[in-house]
């Protein structure tokens, strides 16, 4: 394991500094010793010693930062200094996004001083979270509430207007009423989502990590998996190298050198993700089997929080919450950050209320072994129109479980991050693949979703039909009406704005991040760009290629 400080210039996501020990083995419950994580950093800090006329400013570099303090490298600060005043601005990507709100001016006490290395361990008198909670976060919270309330009120008002003028354009207004109702229902249902109480048991768990050409991330993935707050003797980790042609095998080997308990399987040539996972399942010994992606970075308590939901014996599978790892790369990744959050915390949470989420996400999903084995063969050998199904693995497996009447849920507190595409070409190809799998598997699910709870069934069919009609509505609003009537699509744009406000305000409320505005941007990106992929996906959904096999780089 390479413990040299990573390059934090142009950071795209926080990089948590590992505990001094490789596993949190010092505690019986394997919980972390730290109250808050520390993140690698490399940014200038001004350190002011003294007060009034006797104050002196020195410069230093922050080598790590946390909510509670800084590790500053500076040989200028006089020895014996007990308290300093710090001026700094944490660059984007160093800390979790809710901390990035401009320059900071804080008072800190000196906790330790390594004169040889020039390191000063500084503890903030007031943690950053407390400070932000008093000011910026409080303001953002109110802004979010006002925005969300306003967006919902505006939506309801617009739907009321749709009723008033219904017969003026019945098809359009009926569609608009359904879309508005569907969207609001997501938020309403998601509000009913509740996390179960923590499970005290620690059953044996197998964690499967399929990898294909992931030389840059695989080590970190494995490291974070091995840092999970879970008893080592109850955790089996299997890495499956599915025919990688880059340095992935070597990276896996390095990781195994550090963590010999990690098992590995290698296929050459590769057999595809499903077969890789199926092979892992065959070797698994755990009562619960966790699938993650090779670029998924799990929070230490992710597995515990997944297992909380299995206290209900009818639960067959649980998906975790996935955020974007490379948030700060560019506007595209920032948009996806908001999109991911809403897709999980609103959309999946809304489905989870009815124990019927429609997609156990690839980055993090946990299965009850017996239930998984019931469907494994069918999943592995699934064909579509006579050809092997090579994408939509997650949706397909979810459908098999749902069809059997099992409960499938979402665990908000089981958190991980994943890398998302950083260029539009890769992103669009990924989205097209996702739309194909969505369409195909949704068609399959149409056959049995009516048996689910009534509100879930109605939501599913609406959620399937409305997006199919969307391109027609967009063509009318953005092409036909402006061209033929020279009427600017103000109403349509206003509608998208209201919808984006609803989505972004939730992000703002929870994340307290200035990235919320990218939710607005994403909605417009979807309505003006992504929506056109849907007809293409519908017409080409029988294609089997992945389209995107390359991964974004950190």
């Amino acid at each position, binding site marked *: 394991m390479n413990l040299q400080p990573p390059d934090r210039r142009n950071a795209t996501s926080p990089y948590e500094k590992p505990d001094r020990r490789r596993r949190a083995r010092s505690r019986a419950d394997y919980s972390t010793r730290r109250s808050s994580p520390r993140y690698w950093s490399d940014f200038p800090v001004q350190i002011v010693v003294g007060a009034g006329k006797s104050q002196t400013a020195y410069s230093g570099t922050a080598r790590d930062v946390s909510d509670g303090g800084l590790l500053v490298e500076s040989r200028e600060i006089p020895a014996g200094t007990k308290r300093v005043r710090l001026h700094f601005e944490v660059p984007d990507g160093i800390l979790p996004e809710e901390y990035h709100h401009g320059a900071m001016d804080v008072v800190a006490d000196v906790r330790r001083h390594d004169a040889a290395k020039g390191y000063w361990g500084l503890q903030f008198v007031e943690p950053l979270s407390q400070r932000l909670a008093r000011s910026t976060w409080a303001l953002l919270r109110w802004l979010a509430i006002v925005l969300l309330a306003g967006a919902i009120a505006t939506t309801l008002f617009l739907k009321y207007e749709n*009723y*008033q*003028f*219904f*017969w*003026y*354009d*019945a098809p359009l207004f*009926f569609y608009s*009423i*359904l879309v508005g*109702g569907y969207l609001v229902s997501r938020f309403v249902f998601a509000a009913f989502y509740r996390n179960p109480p923590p499970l005290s048991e620690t059953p044996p768990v197998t964690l499967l990590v399929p990898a294909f050409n992931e030389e840059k991330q695989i080590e970190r993935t494995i490291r974070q998996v091995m840092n999970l707050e879970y008893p080592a003797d109850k955790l089996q980790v299997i890495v499956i190298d599915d025919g990688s042609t880059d340095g992935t095998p070597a990276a896996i080997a390095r990781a195994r050198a550090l963590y010999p308990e990690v098992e590995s399987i290698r296929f050459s040539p590769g057999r595809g993700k499903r077969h890789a996972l199926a092979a892992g399942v065959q070797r698994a010994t755990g009562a619960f089997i966790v699938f993650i992606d090779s670029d998924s970075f799990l929070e230490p308590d992710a597995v515990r929080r997944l297992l909380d939901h299995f206290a209900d014996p009818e639960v067959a599978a649980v998906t975790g919450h996935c955020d974007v790892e490379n948030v700060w790369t560019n506007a595209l990744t920032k948009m996806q950050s908001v999109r991911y959050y809403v897709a999980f915390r609103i959309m999946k949470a809304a489905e989870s209320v009815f124990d019927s989420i429609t997609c156990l996400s690839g980055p993090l999903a946990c299965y009850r072994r017996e239930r998984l084995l019931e469907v494994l063969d069918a999943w592995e050998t699934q064909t579509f129109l006579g050809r092997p199904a090579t994408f939509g693995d997650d949706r397909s497996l979810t459908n098999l479980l749902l069809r059997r009447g099992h409960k499938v849920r979402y665990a908000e507190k089981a958190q991980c991050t994943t890398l998302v595409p950083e260029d539009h070409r890769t992103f669009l190809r990924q989205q097209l693949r996702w739309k194909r799998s969505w369409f195909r598997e949704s068609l399959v699910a149409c056959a049995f979703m009516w048996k689910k*709870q*009534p*509100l879930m069934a*109605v939501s599913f069919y609406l959620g399937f039909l409305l997006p199919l009609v969307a391109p027609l509505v967009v063509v009318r609003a953005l092409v036909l009406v402006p061209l*033929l*009537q*020279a*009427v*600017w699509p103000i109403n349509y744009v206003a509608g998208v704005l209201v919808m984006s406000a609803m989505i972004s305000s939730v992000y703002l409320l929870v994340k307290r991040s200035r990235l919320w505005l990218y939710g607005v941007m994403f909605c417009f990106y979807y309505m003006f760009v992504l929506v056109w992929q849907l007809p293409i996906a519908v017409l080409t959904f029988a294609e089997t290629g992945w389209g995107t096999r390359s991964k974004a780089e950190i």
Partner: protein
Amino acid sequence: MKKLSIALQWLVVAALAALALQPFIKGRPLPERQPETWRNWQGFMALSYAGVGIGAPETYPTPKRMAEQLAALHAAGYRTITPADALAFLEGRRPLPPKALLLLLEGGRKDSVVFTAKPFRKTGFCGTLCLPTRLLDARGAFFLRSGDLHRVAKMKFWSFAGMGHAAIDEIPVGPGDEKGHFLTRRAWTNAGLESPEAFRERVAADYANCRDAIAQTVGETPLAYVYPFADAGQGPEADPDAEAINREEVAKHFQLAFVEADQPFNGPGADPHALQRWRVPGNATGAELVRRLEQFAPRANAAGDLRDAGAWQGVGKVHFSGAGAKFAPGAAAWIRGSDNWSDVDVTATLRLGADAVAALYARHVSAQSFLRVTLAPAGLRVQERTAGGLRTLYESPDPLPANEPVTVRLRVKGARAWLWRGAEQLAGPLPLAARRAPGRVGLAAETGAFRAQACRAQPLEAALAVAADLERVPAENRDAFQALIAPLAGSSADVAQAWRRTLLAAAAQGVEIVPRLVATDAATALADLRALREDPIFRSLIGRVAATAPSAELLQGLHDSKLAVVAVVPAAAAAQGSFDAQGLRPDDWILVDGDETETLAALDRLLAVFPADRTAAFLDSARSRELGIAPAVRYEP
């Protein structure tokens, strides 16, 4: 618990489905229309709006104000009609709802539709969109476009009227920058001022283009036309022939045309191509609007108090005070609610200014149709103007002094008029035109100024009497009715002589005699009548003939003889629907004969298809007035 959850969810799904499908469940909202209950033959009011919007509230009511006005009108009992309803009424085919309103929204603006959608749905009102058809292809969202009209037409709350094609444009009318209205000014071209023929052709083409554009877009030919700029050629800047040309051409392309007027009422005798529309002030509250309309409503009681300015509709400078009204040159004032009066007794005391000519109108339909007394220094004249021109029926040789009060009284009953100056009867009965339309009563300063010290006008009840002959009717009652229906038994010389005497005596008293045919077969009855009408006295004094339940053959024969018919209909038969009024013509009358109960039942059927102002029945005056019909009185030996 799970079952409860499922049950609750089904309830929620059902409620949401009901909510989402509510428009389909409720069905397309329709305006409130119950034509089978309509019995109003008095007329309708045409209200026009320039649009609905924000800004210039005097002209354009705000959406809130518009909703308030419509709600107030609905609460006050007003009901809306379409141009088709108005046309059927004017043609005497169908009655209207009580307090009938025709709402005209001008300009083809989208905000008119948008901001009236909710109030219309709440009140059940409908409106007429007046479309300048050139704007149907205008780019932008302000005006209604062809696609919009398709959808608006489906909403059933709207009819469509024309408002010109290029007629909304102003055109060059002179060599400089001078601009004028398309329909009323001759255009200035490269070759100079266009010829009258070219002007007529351009105007005619515009009417045709407007009508055709609407017909092609909504699939229905519009019936009504509204003049853009409220200019039908009557203004001082218009080309001298503009009004007449527009009048002729609009009649070729539209069946109704509306001009802007100072009051909105249109009675059964209104000119269909010069119907009045009144622009509603945008900032009027609902209560104010209802109050104004009540002033315009037809009235049946005496009126004309000069101390009450609200009882008059002034045009030009008229100043009302406790001492009367002062009329500036060219000013006029009309008694509100007198538009439907036919027979009237009006008295006015006027004080003329130097060289002033004042007029007391007993019936003013338009500048081409009126009955008046003019007071000038040279004396009094009674004049009647009809389509045949202006006739002076009487001219007094005595001059009238200036600045001294002169009281004149004009009584009009049927086709006769009488004139008094003070207590002295100067003339009468003066013969009036046989066919005449009701019109309003008022005063006008034709030239110069005058002061009116007093005025009183009383509509006379159009009662019918039924008796064996005139002698059966007490003398003191003879003034109370306009026509006497007496049986005509045969055409012998004795009968002819008796009738001659009766006709002359009645004419002298201004009473029309309507012979009632008693022969049982049509041929005999017609033969009797023909024989009698060889006498010129009979021919000139008999304009109507009564017959009991006349057959189609008899009706045809009478109509061919250019006689109007009073169809005496047994009430019992009419109540059961066995009398068909289809064969009757616009001048014909119906007299319902029966007891009160049967009569009321018969009238309920008949008034659905026959005008009340040409219907009589043996009911008391109060009930007759309520129904809008003429009372009939039977004088038995």
